[in-house]
Structures are given as structure tokens and as C-alpha cells.
């Protein structure tokens, strides 16, 4: 098992495995998006209070979830990188940080677009919104830190430590609506028990969440392959690979 992981994490093998996975995740992603978008934007009934404006949930919730999921994966990759010094972990961090930042921005901006007509304000400094904004700053911090340190290994170590320290923000984001009074509503989706959303609205939402996850996987794999080519361009296997 351990040997297998080491083998998988070798850039050369990862490059090939990712190459075979990418077409499948892309197809799966396209199908899920198709189901989710048609189901969410056309078939799902309008909300009894918000009318059609509730449909922004199909982008807002998946992007907010992804912003946290990507962060958790990056923090795990950071631990792996610091403890076992596996090259692949830092490659994953380097290529997924901008994606995580993009999802965080998307969650914040779609929330603001929805908040203006529904709440009556674009922004309010409540615990949920503020902690999500801090997440965006952490992502930007990781990107900036990596760009500021020219030596690749030092950049990897510094950003890994920042990612590990920043993990405390994730439970705060998640539980903010339960711990404090916030303008943001509580959790609609629950894995255990009944979700507080009508089934016809719920199915497309799960499809969109899975579609976003597949999308993120595909993009990260594609970008990781490119990054491997860039970092390992001196190595023999790439030289041989490019000659063919």
C-alpha cells in the first residue's frame, strides 16, 4: 500500500494516470452540469417567497462548499508535503490555490447579488460572510507567498505552514451560523436527516455540487500535468516523452 502510494506520487506515473482519468471526469462533469443546470434553472419550481431569485443557490452553495473542500485538501497536502516531502503534494497546492480562490470569490459575489434584493444589502459583517472573506484572503496570501519566494522549496514550505495555520478558519466558517447570530441563514443541506428544501429543488443541487467537484478535479489534474512538465523538464522521461 505504502509502496503503491509512493509509486503513484512519482510525477511520471501521476502524469500518465491523470492523463487517463481526465477524459472520464470531463464527461462525468459535463453530464452532471447538464442535469443540474436543466433541473435547476428550468424544471425546479420557483420558491414560494423568493421566486426565481432562489436559483442562484445552484451556483452559490456548490462554490462555497468547494472553496472549503479545496482548502481542506490543500491543508492535507501541506501536511504530506512537510512530513514526507512528496513532490506531488506541492504541485497540487500550487495548481489548486488559484482555483480555490476563484470558488471563494464566486461564493462571495453570488451571495452579494442575492443579498441585495433579498436581505436589502450587498454585504454585512456577520460571522459567516466575514469568515468566508478571510478564507479568500488566506488563498490570496498563499498565492502571493509562493510568488514572492523565488526558491521553490522555501516557497513550498512557507505556503504549507500558512495553509496549516489557516485550517482553523474552516470550522469557523462552517459553524458560524450555529455559534453566533448571523444574517446568513443556517444550513439547508444535511447529510443526515431531512434537508430543508423541497425534493424537486434538491436533486439538481446535489447534481451541481457533484458537477463542481468533478470540474475542480478535472482542472486540477490538467493543471498538475502542465506543472509537472514545467518542473521536471530536465528529467529523462520528459525528454524522451517530448522526442516521440
Amino acid at each position, binding site marked *: 500500500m*505504502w509502496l503503491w502510494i509512493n509509486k503513484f506520487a512519482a510525477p511520471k506515473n501521476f502524469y500518465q494516470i491523470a492523463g487517463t482519468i481526465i477524459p472520464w471526469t470531463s464527461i462525468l462533469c459535463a453530464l452532471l452540469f447538464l442535469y443540474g443546470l436543466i433541473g435547476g434553472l428550468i424544471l425546479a*419550481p*420557483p*420558491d*414560494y*417567497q*423568493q421566486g426565481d431569485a*432562489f436559483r442562484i*443557490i445552484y451556483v452559490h452553495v456548490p462554490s462555497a462548499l468547494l472553496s472549503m473542500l479545496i482548502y481542506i485538501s490543500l491543508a492535507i497536502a501541506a*501536511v504530506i508535503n*512537510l*512530513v*514526507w516531502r512528496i513532490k506531488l503534494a506541492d504541485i497540487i497546492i500550487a495548481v489548486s490555490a488559484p482555483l480555490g480562490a476563484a470558488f471563494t470569490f464566486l461564493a462571495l459575489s453570488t451571495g452579494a447579488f442575492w443579498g441585495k*434584493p*433579498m*436581505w*436589502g*444589502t450587498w454585504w*454585512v*459583517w*456577520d*460571522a459567516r460572510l466575514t469568515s468566508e472573506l478571510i478564507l479568500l484572503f488566506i488563498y490570496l496570501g498563499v498565492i502571493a507567498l509562493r510568488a514572492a519566494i523565488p526558491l521553490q522549496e522555501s516557497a513550498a514550505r512557507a505556503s504549507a*505552514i500558512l495553509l*496549516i*495555520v489557516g*485550517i*482553523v478558519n474552516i470550522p*469557523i466558517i462552517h459553524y458560524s451560523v450555529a455559534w*453566533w*447570530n*448571523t*444574517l446568513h*441563514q*443556517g*444550513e*439547508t443541506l444535511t447529510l443526515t436527516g431531512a434537508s*430543508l*428544501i*423541497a425534493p*424537486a*429543488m434538491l436533486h439538481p443541487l446535489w447534481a451541481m455540487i457533484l458537477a463542481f467537484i468533478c470540474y475542480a478535479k478535472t482542472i486540477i489534474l490538467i493543471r498538475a500535468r502542465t506543472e509537472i512538465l514545467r518542473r521536471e523538464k530536465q528529467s529523462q522521461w520528459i525528454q524522451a516523452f517530448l522526442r516521440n
Partner: protein
Amino acid sequence: MKLNPIQRRRLLFILLIIIAVALATALALYALQQNINLFYNSSQIAAGQAPLNHELRLGGMVQANSVKRMPHSLAVNFIVRDNAKSVRVSYVGILPDLFREGQAVVVEGKLTVQGVVQADQVLAKHDEKYMPAILK
């Protein structure tokens, strides 16, 4: 999982960092508890826990049949309550789409000596339930 002594030391160090940062954050948040809450409940205001003539926020439900609009102006009076106490609010301005009786709101304004919140802004708070009109 195989860990040689160096790797074990690194892992321990990381765990220590996480615990220290989590502890520091928990203490800071605990100290700031009141300030992180976005609003006072109507019970807290009725009990006199909120300062007079200071910018504050009040959260609760708009009481049924309490919304009174003044003719020929945007002025509106209503009552915000939780399950115990109620507080009167007066406001001049445009209300958000979701504002209606029985809905949750967050009101930003100043508490006057008469115990009325003079609002500068009224925000509607949406709940976490989504359903089609037909089920309502």
C-alpha cells in the same frame, strides 16, 4: 504508515502548531463572543442590555398585524419580537422584498429613551427553507 524519527518529529510539530493556533483562536473568539453576534434579541433590548442612543442591531420576527404605514410617506412602524419580548421599531425608507409580517428581520438603528428603535436600515433575514409555492 511508516514514519521514521524525523518524519515523526515533523508530524508532531505540525500537530502542535494546529493545537496552539486552534486554542488561541478559540480564546479570542470566546473573548469577542458578544461582538461577533450580529444583533441583539428583542428580549435583550427589553431587559435593558443594549446601550441607549448607540448604533445597534435588533433581530427577530415582525409581529403579525403590527406593520403600520403612515399615509403619504415612507414612514412605517412595526413590532419585532422573539418568543418572549417585543420591541417597537420606526423606520423611514424602502423595505426589502422579503420584508413581511411573520418574517425574520435585522434592524439597524438607535434605541431611544422610549424603548423604540429608530431604524436607519431594515434587512430581511431569510430562513433555510426552500419550497415551491404549491406546498405553502
